[in-house]
């Protein structure tokens, strides 16, 4: 394994990350964006785990401690990236869950989860407010809504 | 080659062939139920064959027991999962394909 063949793993990681990034940018659907973000993360995981591999290595579990008879003299893969990614995977599912909860709330409030429609609705809201001469910027917007809430 | 390696190779090859036929069926069959039939049935058998093949080459007795346990559990759980998917599709109102077109 020399030359290009030696680093193809890193190219696949770039490819996966870019597929994820493309999904996040190009797809207006929020669920699709959350999934694509997951792809992006997996690309990074692949990068880390690829770095841990060593030629002729094996899983970093020291069998010599359990069973003195089975001696293994060869190298072990580096366990540190494994540890980092192990926790990162579980955190990524937590991130996904929070994202999904937010998406559900968006669906509940706006009735859609397509980003361009959401943007259009926000713009229309702002334009209508502006024409009524009520709100010009976001801070005012929040105050305005709070006041409206109290009055209601 | 030792005899157990021969047995293992045969079982693994058989499992792979059956798995492959299942994949071919998934691509070839006309509707959901037929495809699930291909996937579910072949998967159960192929998994068991592959795991049994591995039992023959594992030196450790504990690992052998674990592999057989996994094979046994898969034999129960995989058809049940297939059944659950089929039932859900049926409850959802998906009708099976017939030669004369959809009912």
């Amino acid at each position: 394994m020399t030359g290009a063949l030696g680093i193809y793993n890193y190219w696949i990681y770039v490819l996966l990350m870019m597929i994820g990034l493309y999904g996040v940018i190009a797809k207006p659907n929020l669920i699709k964006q959350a999934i694509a973000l997951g792809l992006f993360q997996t690309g990074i995981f692949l990068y880390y785990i690829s770095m841990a591999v060593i030629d002729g290595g094996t899983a970093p579990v020291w069998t010599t401690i359990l069973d003195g008879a089975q001696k293994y003299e060869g190298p072990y893969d580096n366990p540190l990236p494994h540890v980092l990614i192990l926790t990162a995977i579980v955190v990524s599912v937590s991130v996904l869950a929070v994202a999904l909860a937010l998406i559900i709330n968006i669906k509940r409030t706006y009735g859609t989860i397509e980003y361009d429609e959401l943007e259009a609705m926000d713009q229309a809201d702002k334009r209508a407010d502006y024409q009524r001469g009520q709100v010009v910027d976001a801070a005012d917007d929040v105050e305005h809504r709070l006041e409206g809430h109290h009055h209601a | 080659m030792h005899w157990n390696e021969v047995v293992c190779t045969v079982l693994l090859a058989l499992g792979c062939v059956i798995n492959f036929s299942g994949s071919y069926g998934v691509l070839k069959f006309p509707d959901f139920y037929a495809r699930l039939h291909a996937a579910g049935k072949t998967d159960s058998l192929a998994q068991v064959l592959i795991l049994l093949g591995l039992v023959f080459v594992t030196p450790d007795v504990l690992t052998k027991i674990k592999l057989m346990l996994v094979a046994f559990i898969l034999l129960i759980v995989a058809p049940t999962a297939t059944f659950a998917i089929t039932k859900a599709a049926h409850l959802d109102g998906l009708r099976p394909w017939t030669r004369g077109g959809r009912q």
Partner: protein
Amino acid sequence: MNAVVLIDTLLLLLVTATAVAIVEVRSLYASSILTGIYSLLMALVWVNMHSMDVSFTEAAVGGGISTILLIGTLVHVGREEKPIKKRLHVPALVFTALTGAALIYGTLDMPRFGDPAAPIHHYRVPEMMAQTVGFVNGTPGKQKPPEGFDLERYRRFDGRVTGPIPADPTDTAWREKSILQTEGLIVPQVRAAHEPHAEPGHHLHPPDDFNGHVPNSVTSLLAAYRGYDTMFETTVIFTAGVSLILLLRRPRREGYLQPGAVMSDQVILRVVTKLSIPFILIFGFYVITHGELGPGGGFQGGVVLATAFILYALIFGRAALYRVVPPPVSDMLTGLGVLIYSGTGAVCMLLGGKFLDYSMLNPELPGDGESLGMTLVEYGVGITVSMVMLTIFNQLAEERST
């Protein structure tokens, strides 16, 4: 080209194809299922790269939980994406191509895949692991002992060595001495040349923070070397559970537990579920407890435990699940896991060590103390992870019935 590289290439090609399909397919439902397939393929890739723990986690989390969560969300946001007129988003394509080209240019400087001379294999972690774990029980695993390494003296560090521990007159007062040394009140003895890291510390504990008595080095790094990190990762998961509750939980109204299409009238499903749930629970606890000896640990075991509850809820309805694990109980257990983790650290501190210095739990046999501490910590992680996953599932499912 050897077989490993061949399998690796094939798997990575499959993974890439699946990734393209996930992004491009229009049905969100198909996209979610493909995400599950993608995760299982990734798990295979990681087995091929000898990363068993990560593979286990990916299979449990990516193939199991996140697919369930995605499908649970699709139930109330719709399963089809809005049709897009232009299939190809040209600015995004140009941007990703440029970024990708830059990253690939960066990889040209990387050491080749599996290069033993890569810096990662020669920095602090492998060095220290070779010194501690490699020699445990007096059987050098990875490297030759350093010049003048006294194996007999080292064996004394290991609780599992049979036979009489050599009498050492200083052993009786080792605790006081080590504390005094740590506080800088007495100067350490003349440093023995054969000790790899003869820093001030107590004698029975291998003089580093790797806790090398635990066979699965991933777990020992997870719980000891990166113990703080893992503790706060657990806190992140806890926070995610709390966020879900804050975002989605609403006051219980009458009939909030209206069962949907419960599958429990299917005899096969009912029987097999009842048959397999005990096995899933036992397996979950086995994975948590066994985490220090083999692949597995709190994260994976916690997810496995959660799947047992989720399976129960799927088949028998959430009302039945709430009778088994009422929401207040699961909320409390979510916090309890983090408390167990940090409490273990605090106990170690009260016993005179540093935070999360597990060998303090059993000063006579530090190896056993480390095992005990790691098991406790893994249980903390497992409880939090399982209960957070359950809470997330409950909140996403509850949304449907309100």
